[in-house]
């Protein structure tokens, strides 16, 4: 029996900055028996406009997403934040448009963040990978609080052979990225990311892992500026055993 037909929504940041996250996601999905497709008409989920109060632009972009991902069994996203926009916000976005709201809700019902899709939908309990080293996992906010992603990535990471998983202090406190927030309020964002890199370094782990590239670029960028030695990687890279790719912000 053929596995589910899954569409990958790669997200704008992964598309542009870190395609290896997309390929690692495909590898995990294929390994779990899915048939993966990447709809060519995808762009961005529309969150930048939505969170800036530009409802009309957000709706225009969301309509494209809804149309592009019609007909797949599941839509999987290597980002809790973009997944949450589809799952939680699209319905509210189209509150005055019954037809599109119904389509938005239908899409929301089959859209998943990657690690929770693996554990909760595909019932994957372990990944067959070995990675020597230590890691600490940062809970990106939207994935954690809008989608309940917390135990799932940790469960999968615990199955990686040789990986020493350590908890930092306040893993669930925001890193200060917040999309446009980090450039709109750089001073506050800087305090938040400085606290975060300090807490990461406090674990002594070789790397920080998270499920959102925005947060990771923020933490990696700060760590480099501070001369810290830990690496930053998307959680799927470790789960897929892709440790050859240079870490975020490192030269190739």
């Amino acid at each position: 029996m053929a596995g589910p037909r899954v569409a990958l929504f790669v997200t704008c940041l992964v598309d542009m900055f870190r395609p290896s996250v997309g390929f690692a996601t495909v590898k995990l999905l294929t390994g779990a028996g899915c048939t993966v497709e990447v709809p060519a008409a995808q762009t961005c989920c529309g969150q930048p406009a939505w969170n800036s109060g530009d409802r009309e632009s957000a709706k225009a972009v969301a309509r494209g997403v809804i149309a592009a991902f019609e007909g797949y069994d599941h839509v999987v996203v290597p980002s809790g934040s973009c997944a949450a926009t589809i799952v939680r916000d699209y319905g509210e976005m189209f509150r005055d448009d019954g037809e599109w709201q119904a389509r938005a809700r239908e899409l929301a019902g089959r859209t998943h963040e990657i690690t929770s899709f693996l554990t909760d939908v595909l019932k994957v309990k372990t990944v067959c990978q070995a990675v020597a080293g230590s890691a600490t996992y940062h809970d990106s906010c939207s994935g954690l609080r809008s989608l309940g992603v917390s135990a799932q990535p940790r469960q999968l990471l615990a199955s990686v052979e040789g990986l020493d998983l350590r908890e930092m202090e306040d893993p669930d406190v925001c890193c200060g990225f917040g999309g446009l927030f980090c450039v709109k309020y750089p001073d506050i964002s800087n305090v938040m990311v400085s606290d975060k890199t300090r807490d990461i370094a406090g674990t002594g782990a070789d790397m920080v892992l998270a499920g959102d590239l925005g947060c990771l670029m923020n933490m990696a960028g700060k760590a480099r500026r501070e001369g810290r030695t830990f690496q930053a990687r998307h959680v799927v890279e470790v789960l897929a055993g892709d440790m050859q790719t240079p870490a975020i912000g490192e030269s190739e």
Partner: protein
Amino acid sequence: MSHSSPTTPAFRANVRAALDNTNLQAALRGQRGNFVRKRAAAREALPEFDALRDHARDIKNHTLANLDRYLEIYEKNVTESGGTVHWAETAEDARRIVLEICQSVGAKTVNKGKTMISEECGINDHLQANGITPVETDLGEYIIQLRGEAPSHILAPAIHVTVAEVEAAFRQFHDDLDPARDLSDIASLQVEARGRLRAKYFEAEVGITGANLLIAETGQSVIVTNEGNGDLSQSLPKVHIVMASLEKVVPTLEDASTVLRVLARSATGQEAAVYTTFSKGPRRAGDPDGPEQYHVVLLDNGRSGMLGTEFEEMLRCIRCGACMNHCPVYQAVGGHAYGWVYPGPMGAVLTPGLIGVEQGGQLPNASTFCGRCEAVCPMRIPLPKMMRNWREREFEKKLTPKAMRSGLGLWAWFARRPWAYRTGTRVANRVLKTLGKKGSFSSLPLAGGWTDHRDFPAPQSGGTFMDQWKAVRR
């Protein structure tokens, strides 16, 4: 410092000043996580806590849907007990009413329990301008009154002050204080403040308190304190004035009990505050003590305008402070940066509602939408969603900065056209890759907001994911 003119529009400058203030940063860092741990422990110890939150939310929703009815019942019961309800549509009305009551009994000194509504109305400045001395009796409020400041937290008004700064204030303002006296720790400061305040309780003709709750079926007002200062402030003087905003009402005593059970746990992690005091009307014949007059000043000040709008849920707020205790933005800058009475996430939603989004619009923008506030709110107020609603109001009114509006417009144009978007990302990817050979940028044109504080990671080689995917699938 008065709240009559908000500095909220200067939020960015306030933030800079707050981050450069080493005493403030030391105070904020010193208590980091305390409230968070205490609330978590209290929640852990009460298995039905989250169910109680649902119940409390439902009580408030029902009350707000029938607010006029419950306020009328409340007024009727206050009146029957011999008290008087004064309806204050604006802060100015409230100032006038309070002053008139004070003047009617020839008051020279007014003792105050902690009340944010008094802060919102600028009562202290108004009394002082009319020759009446307000004395704050809550320790935190007392400290900031000495320092000439406004509260920086709705629960812990002096949370921004270090122990050394409290000592300095006492030494400056407490006459005849022995210079040799040790005031280097919190306990010794408490003893000193208590000694000063005890004497004041018997001088005041009027006591003003806030109210955590008003109970419609009984006509009672409820205050929740840990120092007992509120009780002395309201029971010793001849006149007790309760200042409360109109959404504080709940239908029944039973409802009040539900709200109280989530309030203290969310606020300080206590099962109940040290003092929870129910007051009703003036002293009756045969009562051993109590005020001769009991007045309630019910403030609207813009709240009724939030009813029936997408901001109505904000009126469920019970002022526990959990949102600011858990907010990384508040924890970084403290409460004064918010520039008006209410800081933190609840302030970021309420402030634009009360002083207008034109003045208060910075606050709902200064959020990462991390959602920690909503996660801990005992009344389950969707704070991030309402901050986003304010941003939408700003966008509709064209208050959003021009550069951002046009940037979003341009971005949306591309995002709606996959072919153009592909070309755009391809070009941007190549440019960034070519320039960022070292793996990241230490500076980047137009990205100073990012690169002033951190490096900017460059794209991986090989082009965008979509281009690579197309190539491998060919």
